[in-house]
């Protein structure tokens, strides 16, 4: 109580009675989260506007006779004739490590009931992306913990890799697995005391989702011990379209703080389809001209300026990175629709999830043929490159042959062997949700695959065999796995050790 009184006394002592100048306007119309304002002669584009009751908005339409502003938050208490003021500032959000483990809204305010956010800095929500000179090439791996991705579609720190697919194909699961894997890697790395270890902090931006989905995601992250390295920015479906529009930029601002301060961060935008829909809603109410599919003409710029803020920057400009995993939901697998093609052209690759594969039980349902990482093996550990180099080719050959095998013709031995191998690889890449696999275990299993260890195991038992081998390696060959992780390449010594380990394991698997 005494500290509150002291605070008030200090505030009163600092009071000044000189005239305060402000530029004001009056609300002409308010509805659907958009206010038309008369006045505000000094307002600038994107400037924050103060509405009565502590509500804020952003000026988005500067017309001859009126200003169109979107209201961030509740607008039920606003009415025609209310006075609004220019603030002279752009929208900013609190940033820093104080946000880790917290759930915030699109304005950076906490919504998890755990008290105020400890933050001494703010970053503007809209910011110009790093230029060419400020950037550095992407060559550090970001492990997702998903075998199919880490081996064939490797992602690097600072890359933008799109996750795209129909509803219910596991897009969010891939993103959450990646976040959990970063937390697992962080714990091991920090415990090792390695001074060169760089943890990856994660930001999950939920746009237009059901509150129950966000709560479930929060529960999973808490259960897996990943929440302490994660920030959740939540703009659920119940929020105003303006909040859903701003949320990804808020997440980007939070991520930029890590990037500018020599740290690595990962940001997931789930999902940008709903983000585009919210922007379309706002633009139509603002009476902006509409184009294809009723989206405004600048819907490409909406996503390009967001995703360009994810980069790897040089030592002189922060020495950090911000990796982006935007998610797009397609309808009936249509990759050629408007928003998907926009975002595909912006990002550095895509992971395409197919409904057919999902329904066949191949989960994660990654379509290896349509997925690509434009950064590629530049961001892959040497060990993974050594064991996964030919996997993509073998799978492509398998898919081609599988189409002919359907006709039931007699097959020669070589074709049968290729089909068997392909089927085994497909089984190998099956993985349960929320169980990312450490890279050293992936390398061990893939080494076994490359060296034909699984050739005499029935295809239907492949999942059990790979699980058994990983359990064996993690429980009995921890030193070997640590060597794989630390050396990051398979030399002759590691090859000998791997062979010995696999030979020891094989008889135990019935």
């Amino acid at each position, binding site marked *: 109580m005494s500290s509150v009184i002291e605070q008030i006394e200090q505030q*009163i002592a600092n*009071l000044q009675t000189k005239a305060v100048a402000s530029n004001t306007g009056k609300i002409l119309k308010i509805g659907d989260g958009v206010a038309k304002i008369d006045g505000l002669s000094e307002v600038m584009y994107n400037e924050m506007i103060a509405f009565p009751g502590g509500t804020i908005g952003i000026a988005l339409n500067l017309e001859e*006779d009126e200003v169109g502003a979107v209201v961030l938050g509740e607008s039920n208490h606003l009415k025609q004739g209310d006075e609004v003021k220019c603030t002279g500032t752009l929208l900013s959000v609190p940033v820093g490590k104080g946000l880790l483990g917290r759930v915030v809204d699109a304005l950076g305010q906490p919504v998890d009931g755990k008290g105020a956010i400890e933050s001494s800095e703010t970053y503007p929500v809209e910011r110009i992306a790093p230029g060419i000179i400020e950037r550095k090439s992407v060559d550090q791996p970001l492990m997702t913990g998903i075998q199919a991705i880490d081996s064939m579609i490797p992602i690097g720190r600072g890359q933008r890799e799109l996750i795209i697919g129909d509803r219910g194909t596991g897009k969010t699961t891939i993103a959450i697995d990646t976040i959990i894997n970063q937390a697992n890697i962080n714990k091991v790395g920090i415990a090792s005391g390695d001074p060169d270890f760089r943890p990856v902090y994660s930001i999950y931006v939920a746009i237009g989702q059901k509150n129950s989905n966000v709560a479930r995601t929060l529960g999973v992250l808490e259960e897996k011990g990943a929440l302490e390295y994660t920030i959740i920015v939540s703009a659920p479906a119940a929020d105003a379209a303006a909040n859903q529009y701003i949320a990804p930029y808020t997440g980007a601002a939070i991520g930029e703080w890590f990037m500018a301060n020599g740290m690595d961060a990962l940001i997931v935008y789930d999902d940008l389809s709903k983000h585009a829909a919210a922007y379309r809603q706002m633009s139509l109410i603002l009476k902006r001209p509409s184009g294809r599919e009723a989206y405004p003409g600048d819907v490409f710029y909406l996503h390009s300026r967001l995703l360009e803020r994810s980069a790897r920057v040089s030592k002189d400009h922060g020495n950090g990175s911000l990796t982006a995993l935007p998610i797009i939901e397609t309808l009936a697998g249509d990759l050629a629709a408007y928003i998907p093609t926009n975002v595909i052209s912006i990002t550095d690759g895509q992971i395409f999830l197919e409904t057919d594969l999902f329904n066949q039980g191949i989960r994660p349902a990654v379509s290896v043929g349509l997925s690509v990482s434009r950064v590629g093996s530049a961001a892959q550990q040497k060990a993974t490159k050594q064991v996964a180099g030919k996997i993509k080719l073998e799978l492509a050959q398998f898919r081609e042959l599988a189409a002919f095998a359907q006709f039931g013709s007699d097959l020669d031995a070589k074709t049968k062997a290729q089909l068997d191998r392909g089927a085994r690889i497909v089984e190998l890449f099956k993985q349960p949700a929320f169980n990312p696999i450490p890279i050293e275990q992936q390398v061990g299993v893939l080494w076994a695959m490359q060296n034909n260890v699984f050739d005499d195991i029935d295809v239907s038992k492949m999942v059990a065999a790979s699980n058994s081998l990983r359990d064996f390696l993690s429980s009995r060959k921890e030193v070997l796995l640590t060597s794989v992780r630390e050396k990051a390449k398979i030399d002759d010594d590691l090859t000998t050790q791997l062979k010995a380990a696999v030979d020891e394991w094989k008889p135990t698997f019935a």
Partner: protein
Amino acid sequence: MTQNKQIKEFAKQLLKMSVEGGDLSADRVDGVLTALNKNPPRHHIAVLKAYLKLVEREVAKSTAIISHAGAIGARSVELISKQLSAKYGRSIVPITREEPSLIAGLRVVVDCDVYDSSISNVLSTLESSLS
């Protein structure tokens, strides 16, 4: 051009005719209204409404509404008017109004610009900074 835009353009032209030497002229406004009454244009109610809005904006630009709590001397009003005229580069006419809710001090409004040195403003700023 949409109908609304045409009406606005027409009203703007009427406003141009109502200005003399950069300032709104009451005689000219009278003249415009008389002419409109004699030969009403299409959608004349809408035209009049748009014209009224522009005239009100023009009047507000040249008027300083000085709200005060308690007494205010004529000298102070003259000083405020002089300073504002110099700032805006046009003649500003002061209009005083008693406003007890200000508690003490002044609030001067010229079009969209508000200059507030009242105690009530200071208290509301203090309230928002503490919340």
